[in-house]
């Protein structure tokens, strides 16, 4: 059983059903399947084979769904990359994975043009909206293939995806996930969420990240309809869409709920079809929980917790929400979790320590990063197995309910995305005139944490806050750019001269 088999079965079972709604497009399962086959055949014709990495630099779109399934069909490995990614980082990811193909959009050309030129392993770049083929660039939509690509001959231990996540070193790490890892996470999530084939899933999250991605995989595997509402920038439009399309399942993050709940005309929309509402990436505030419950009395609201390295770790059953609103639950089926102390010793509940996860959904490691892998994956109780050390500090009560305490490293969570301070600092150091800088997260009502940068300048240099922010926007994903920049004469230092972030607020 491979990750895309459920989707292929659905295409045969309900070909006429609407699979994806995006803007004015409504695409059936039969059409989606045909497009995936054509794309797979094109990639195959260019020599993409089992195990090859294919990078997806795409918006939330029909093409994203087509791309994932075309790549899987070939037994190749899809690497979803946020469409906010800028040139240097994209070039890094193409180089790091030695990607054989890129699947992207003409509108994102400023990001990929130079990156493609710097990627010698790349044999084909399929570009949505490109008028005609030029060098390695191929137009998309793709002409129907004369003969389909041969089906994947891989097994479920093979990689299905590599998903990048922020690393404390500032260099993104590729999380390697096998078909088995992803199917296992799918089954554990489905066991509590219970998605149905008559569900309409409203997806405002980016499918380039794990949370959004699994809605595309599971939704299309189960036979539901996906409504892709690309941008969270216009909350009114989003809510209108949820009402119009009679959306039944809505996954969100606190920043998104905050924008929706702030709408003064929210009560004028009929959202009564919503039956499942989920939150992840960061905790919802108590007032927001109450507002969602009041707005959607018939919906089940799930607080969830997870990370790319294994997709999902815990969920709070909705009936527990009133009793323990700040808990993320007690784990998942077919998975074990426990806390360890700093020496790695397992702690009995109640306790506070680092959360460890054991299960078949845990990644194979970080792509070609053995040192980072060894820090996260450590030997488990059975010979030969690995368990995931999450780096997240939790508190448990006597019954094992989990309460998030904080990160054991300095990773910032802004808008629900992980931001590595080092990555932002590296971008700021590239500005002429910057002597030193330090980046931290500060509490922010809307963003969860906001990125704040402290900067010292070289003698004679002048720089404004906005110049620093603009510079970062040009090099980093938008959510990584600092919201606030403070200029200091000196940064606080430890005795050894290292910048001491604890003194910064």
């Amino acid at each position, binding site marked *: 059983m491979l990750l895309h088999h459920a989707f292929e079965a659905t295409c045969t079972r309900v070909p006429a059903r609407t699979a994806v709604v995006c803007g004015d497009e409504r695409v059936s399962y039969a059409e989606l399947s045909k497009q995936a086959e054509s794309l797979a055949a094109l990639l195959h014709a260019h020599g993409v084979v089992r195990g090859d990495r294919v990078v997806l630099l795409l918006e939330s779109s029909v093409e994203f769904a087509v791309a994932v399934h075309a790549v899987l069909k070939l037994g190749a490995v899809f690497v979803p990359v946020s469409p906010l990614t800028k*040139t240097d980082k994209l070039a890094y990811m193409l180089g790091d994975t030695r990607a054989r193909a890129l699947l992207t959009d003409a509108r994102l050309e*400023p990001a990929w043009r130079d990156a493609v030129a710097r990627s010698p392993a790349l044999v084909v770049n399929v570009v949505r909206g490109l008028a005609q083929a030029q060098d390695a660039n191929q137009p998309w939509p793709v002409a129907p293939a004369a003969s389909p690509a041969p089906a994947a001959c891989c097994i479920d231990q093979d990689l299905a995806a590599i998903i990048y996540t922020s690393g404390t070193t500032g260099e993104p790490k590729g999380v390697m996930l096998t078909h088995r890892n992803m199917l296992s996470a799918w089954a554990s999530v489905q066991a509590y969420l219970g998605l149905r084939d008559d569900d309409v899933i409203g997806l405002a999250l980016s499918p380039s990240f794990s949370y959004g991605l699994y809605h595309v995989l599971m939704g299309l595997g189960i036979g539901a309809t996906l409504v892709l509402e690309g*941008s969270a*920038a*216009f909350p009114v*439009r989003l809510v209108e869409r949820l009402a119009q399309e009679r959306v039944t399942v809505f996954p969100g993050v606190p920043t998104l709920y905050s924008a929706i709940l702030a709408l003064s*005309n929210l009560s004028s929309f009929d959202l009564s079809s919503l039956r499942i509402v989920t939150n992840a990436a960061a905790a919802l505030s108590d007032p927001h929980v109450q507002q969602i419950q009041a707005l959607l009395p018939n919906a089940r609201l799930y607080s969830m917790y997870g990370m790319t390295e294994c997709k999902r770790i815990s969920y709070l059953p909705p009936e527990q929400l009133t009793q323990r609103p700040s808990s993320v639950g007690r784990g998942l089926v077919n998975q074990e979790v426990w806390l360890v102390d700093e020496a790695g010793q397992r702690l009995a509940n109640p306790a506070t320590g680092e959360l460890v996860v054991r299960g078949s959904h845990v990644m194979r490691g970080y792509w070609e990063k053995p040192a980072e892998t060894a820090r996260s994956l450590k030997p488990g109780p059975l010979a030969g197995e690995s368990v995931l050390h999450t780096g997240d500090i939790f508190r448990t009560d006597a019954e094992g309910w989990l309460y998030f305490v904080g990160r054991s490293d300095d990773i910032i969570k802004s808008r629900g995305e992980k931001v590595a301070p080092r990555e932002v600092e590296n971008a700021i150091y590239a500005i002429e005139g910057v002597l030193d800088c330090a980046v931290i997260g500060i509490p922010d009502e809307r963003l969860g944490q906001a990125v704040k940068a402290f900067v010292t300048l070289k003698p004679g240099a002048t720089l404004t806050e906005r110049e620093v922010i603009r510079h970062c926007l040009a090099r980093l994903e*938008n959510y990584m750019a600092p919201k606030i920049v403070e200029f200091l004469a000196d940064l606080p230092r430890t005795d050894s001269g290292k910048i001491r972030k604890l003194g910064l607020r």
Partner: protein
Amino acid sequence: MADLKTELRQYVQDNFIMGAVATAFSDSDSFMELHILDSTGFLELISYLEETYGIAVKDEEMVPENLDSLNSVAAFVTRKRGA
């Protein structure tokens, strides 16, 4: 209107776009599609419009038709100021 568009273009350029990797954008290009503005960027743009042009942007007016290109913003501000 032409002056207003020039001012708005300058604002977007000064605040969101950077020299060498600048995205060239026409008056009708979508800020969202070109990733010039994201959700935070639109909120900043709205604050700027409110402060600079003395208008109040209502929740239901926060839609792409009013905000997602130089043409749309200029027409929206003109309409709001005339109202």
